[in-house]
């Protein structure tokens, strides 16, 4: 298909500035909200690199990064944790999935600074030495991958699912993994692996 009108690219597709900015300009005035504290606001972070701590796989790390750095970039570039992958870089494919406070998130659309003080888990932290996590073992046994590029994200999404829902139904598995794409299309086997891992415990 090719759109024929010059405006075939609809107004809804090329997105403007968010609604939050669309209102009127800045208004000065007194605070009447809350604590009565009306001190001017403190300065911000950036754009130059800032130092901050991140807790990843149970270990504390000090990193220096620009505030614009995503959690994914800091994990991959600063901490050399390259398990989480950058495949779409805008929260559409799930290859960068990590757990933050036990919840699956796209590391590519979270600022690293937003992960301060939180418990970050990546695929590198799952196995205990040579002992693979049940989900990892199930992926191997059921061939839950082909090229393997999306696999760290699939594994982490499955771990998050099973921690919340230890015995998921088939539909719950699909819903739990629906934020993760696999172009080789190992989906059926990924579902099998998730189901097997849920029984393995």
């Amino acid at each position, binding site marked *: 298909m090719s759109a024929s009108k010059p405006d075939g*690219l*609809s107004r809804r597709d090329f997105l403007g500035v968010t*609604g*939050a900015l669309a*209102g009127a300009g800045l208004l000065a005035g007194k605070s009447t909200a809350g604590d009565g504290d009306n001190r*001017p606001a403190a300065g911000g972070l950036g*754009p130059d690199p800032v130092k901050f701590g991140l807790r990843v796989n149970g270990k504390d790390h000090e990193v220096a990064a620009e505030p614009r750095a995503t959690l994914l970039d800091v994990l991959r570039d600063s901490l050399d944790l390259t398990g989480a992958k950058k495949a779409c870089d805008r929260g559409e494919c799930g290859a960068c999935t990590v757990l933050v406070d036990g919840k699956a998130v796209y590391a590519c*659309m979270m*600022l690293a600074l937003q992960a301060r003080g939180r418990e970050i888990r990546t695929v590198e932290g799952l196995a205990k030495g040579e002992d693979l996590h049940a989900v990892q073992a199930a992926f191997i046994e059921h061939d839950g991958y082909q090229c393997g590029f999306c696999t760290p994200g699939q594994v982490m999404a499955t771990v998050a*699912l099973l921690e919340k829902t230890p015995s998921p139904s088939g539909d719950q598995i699909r819903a739990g993994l629906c934020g993760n794409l696999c172009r080789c299309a190992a989906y059926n086997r990924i579902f099998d692996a998730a189901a097997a891992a849920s029984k393995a415990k």
Partner: protein
Amino acid sequence: MRSAVAGLELLEPRSVNEALRMMRDRGPATPLAGATDLYVHLNSGTLKPRRFVNRWALDELRRIASKRDGLSIGALATFTDCLRSPLVRRRLPMLAAAAREVGGVQIQNRGTLGGNVANASPAGDALPVLAAAEALVVLRSTEGERRVPFSAFYTGYRSTVMRADELIVALEIPPVAGKQWFRKVGTRLAQAISKVVIAAVRDARPRIALGSVGPTVVRVPRTEEALASGASIEQARRILEAEIKPIDDIRSTAAYRRRVAGNLLACFWKETS
């Protein structure tokens, strides 16, 4: 990491009030929470702001509470919070249904109800729910708080009545009587942008709201009136198809949206009878 954010500055308030002062004193500054919409703009290079207020950590805005017989949902409540909340599931099941249809789990874990409202996309999955439930948008600035009826919140495509120094702090939902109904028809079964999304309440005064069929989320008063006054569903359907103004875009066609909106209206009416 995109060139579009070169020079990104992040303001780090420790409280809502500090955030409001920052927006007043250091504005314009864009509130940033789950970043699930903002990052799409960043990636496509269409985001102009450089200064952001990180409010992800302001847990005080994450509460979901009973408010008389209705609900008050903090702006930072994520879709996961919404769909797991017993209160939401009991009092506003159509919101839980909508939350389940947002993106994938990762988006549900980070996307917030307030962000969905502020992003002002006509395709926002939760917006028809808030419109049908006749929610109030609670806006706060250093000046104080105001409540804007949802029907008056959007002024056009991606524009709202919100001022640059205001934050959405909560959505207040009055008690919803009658059966609630929600359906999203997306471009794919998950991780999809809606082609038509509808939320509706079956009551003596039926309330029906649709997304992706106009420049903003819309209520359809003529259709609602027709149903309230006993018109047949076929009549109501014709009125609806005339009342909405969908367009052709890369996700679907106007004709499809119109027809599916009518079909969904009929489904709603049948399934809630």
